[in-house]
């Protein structure tokens, strides 16, 4: 899975991944972002996840998103999901994540 992380401004992070967020990749995806935030000198409070190239998300992917949300929430940060396809949106809705996640 290709994962690209990009700093935006002082406290922003832009994440673009390609492929499936599943059993195989979700953990790696989540870990990369988490590590980036933790390793960064500045406090990251604005994370944007680009979903335009994500083709699939499973419960493992959803679990990772929830963890990220919780982490950012604790730091009073914001998690944004960008360009979520209808297909994937169904999965978010299924578990009620659409109620609190910010889709841009």
């Amino acid at each position, binding site marked *: 899975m290709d994962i690209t992380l990009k700093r935006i401004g002082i406290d922003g992070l832009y994440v673009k991944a390609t492929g499936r967020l*599943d059993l195989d990749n979700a953990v790696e995806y989540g870990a990369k972002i988490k590590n980036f935030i933790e390793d960064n000198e500045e406090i990251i409070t604005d994370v944007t996840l680009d979903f335009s190239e994500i083709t*699939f998300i*499973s419960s*493992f992917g959803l*679990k990772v998103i929830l*963890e990220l*949300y919780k982490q950012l929430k604790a730091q009073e940060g914001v998690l944004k999901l960008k360009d979520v396809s209808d297909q994937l949106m169904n*999965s978010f809705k299924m578990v*009620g994540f659409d109620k609190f996640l910010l889709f841009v």
Partner: protein
Amino acid sequence: MFKTLKSKILAIAVTVLAIITFVFMAYAYVFESKTKPLVLDYYSRYIEVLKDNINDDIHRIENNSKGLAIIGNLFYRTDKSVELTKIVMAKIFYNYSDSLGGGIWFEPYVIDKSQKRFCIYAYHNKDGEVVIDESFSSEEYNYLNQSWYKEIISQIREKKVDVAWSKPYYENQGSNTLMITAGSGIFDDKGNLIGISTVDWEISSIEEEIKNMKFVRKNSLSSFASGKFIKNNFALFANIRDDYIIVSTDPYLDNKSLVGKGINNIPWYKSSLIDDLFINYNGKDYIPFVKAFDNGMNLIICIPRKEMFYSLANTLKIMVIGLILLSLIIPALLYLSLNRYVMKPINILINIANKIRKGEDIEIKIEKPVEFAQLASTYDKMTQDIKTITNERAKIVSELSIAKSIQESSLPNIFPPFPEHKEFDIFASMEAAKEVGGDFYDFFFIDETKFMFLIADVSGKGIPAALFMMTTKTLINNLAQNDCTSQKLIENINNKICKENTQGLFITMLIGIADITTGAISIINCGHNLPLIKRQNGNYEYLQLNSNIALGVFENAKFEIYETKLNSGDIIYTYTDGITEATNIKEEMFGEQRLYECLNNLDSNEVTEIAQQVKSSIKQYTNNTTQSDDITMLIFKYNGTQNNTKSFKQIVVQENYNHFYTWVNNTCKEWNIDENLANKLDMCAEEIFANVAFYAYPEKTGSIEAYLTKSDGKIIFEFKDEGVAYNPLKKPDPDITLPPEERPIGGLGIYMVKEMTDDITYKRENEKNILTLTFKI
């Protein structure tokens, strides 16, 4: 009207009577018009006789008068011998028996200058003797002043008649009788009238004669003789010319006082009487018969018309009454006898027939009339025969229904017959026209891949056709099991049928032998209706096969076999002529064109639906007319050999996960499953895979088996593992309404699987966890 026998016969009777009555009436009319003149003529002649009698009297009296005149002349011319003349007078007068009296009378002073009156009078006394009386010349009587004398002498003088008649008068000298007198002139040599002779005619004698005249009433039409006299007839005897009445017997008048009076005293008299057919007098019709005499006297007899034609009218009346009675009695008798001898037995027979119809036991008892007794006994016999026949028939019917059920059960009738074979669908049905039919169909596997189906029509119908059909069906089934080519098989079938065919029956048949793995099919048409074939996405078209000879006709016949390849979705529609020859009310056949149109207008490609819709189309066309032939069809649909189930089996380790989801995704692509469902399958696959990978084999590594099956409108996703028994469905669902801060990180997977599937089941079988997910397409 006149629908019943009874009314018909009565109508005929009444009509005949009416005709008879009419004919009689016509006859009576002619008869009456012919008879009336005869009757009139009869009376006329009758009266003529009377007239002749009176006429004779008149003539005699007139002759007598003339004779006396000669004596008077002799007396005058000769010596005027009174005594001699008296003797002569007496002698002559003796012969004038019907005259009361008569005499010779002279004008004043002719005989004797000294004697004014001279007469000699003779009369018949009571004893019939002639008495000479000279007293009439007396002063007292003074015959010269008597009316009769004056009347007679003036008539003779003025009218120069030989004989003159006086008016009726009373002879007041002695006898005092009413009489009428005839007189002739006595002349001298120079022709001077010197006196008259007279002969008296007593009116009462005339009256008597008239009154004695009786008319016999004619009682029968053929004979005038005998019977009663006519009553109420009356007569008038009068001198019309000199206008005085002599005798009248009119019952309404005082006849005595009328004597000598003018004729105008008779109220009914008219001068036109002689021409009149009848007169109406005092409310009655009379027919007058007028007879005139030379001397101006007339005899008029009036006869009541009723009396006269009494017998004629009476006869007609009796006949009419008789006819009316007849026309009442004859129909009545006819009616009664019809009732008794015809209607009653017929009603009995009707009742009996009704009882027979209801199947009741009956006893027929008619003894009279003989014809009905014979009919009844025939009925009796017939009833027995019917009973026997009915029983036999009932037996046959029950046997036929058994035969029908045997025949029905001999044809495969459970559909789908091979549910495990998705490569093809087949449906067939037969609706027999009679209890047992000559049509049949059959299908079976010759070997693992070759499937044979056939539809056939045995010539003829009923039991023979059915039996032949059963034999044929069995032998085809047997022969087909031998491993041989289609060519050889059909030849064998034909030869075998030829051998067993003793009744000269034959069979038209269409056979299809399909390889269900490849779709290759051999079609053999043995004189049968051409099948229709629908190629995938195309129309039904008649398959233009060359027809072979029907089976059972020639032994060792050769058969041309049509070979083609069916693709997935191709449909072959076969049928018997019962479909194309189904007729509607107008006797028009359903025909191949209608079948063609019907098939191409179907909205389904399901074999059972096709059969159903064609049948209802035919029903609608025939509109419940009697089905004349078996309606049989067989529909074969080839689905192809697509593998509907994909399987996956690998060691369940995370390294293999990508193999697994690749397999799922590829299968979805192959089956053209839409993105949404494919996504669901993907998610479920991951979840179950992860579950098995992480929890099923805690101490060792095991494998996971997965099966994706596509069938009617759904995808079945089955997972099997040999790990520890675990039913994921028992896991409680997470609360997805909780705020994110409170939500646990895990536990979503199974919940999502349950959410996405339409059905999910778990079972533990043969030490395996089997989880089956069903998705609707």
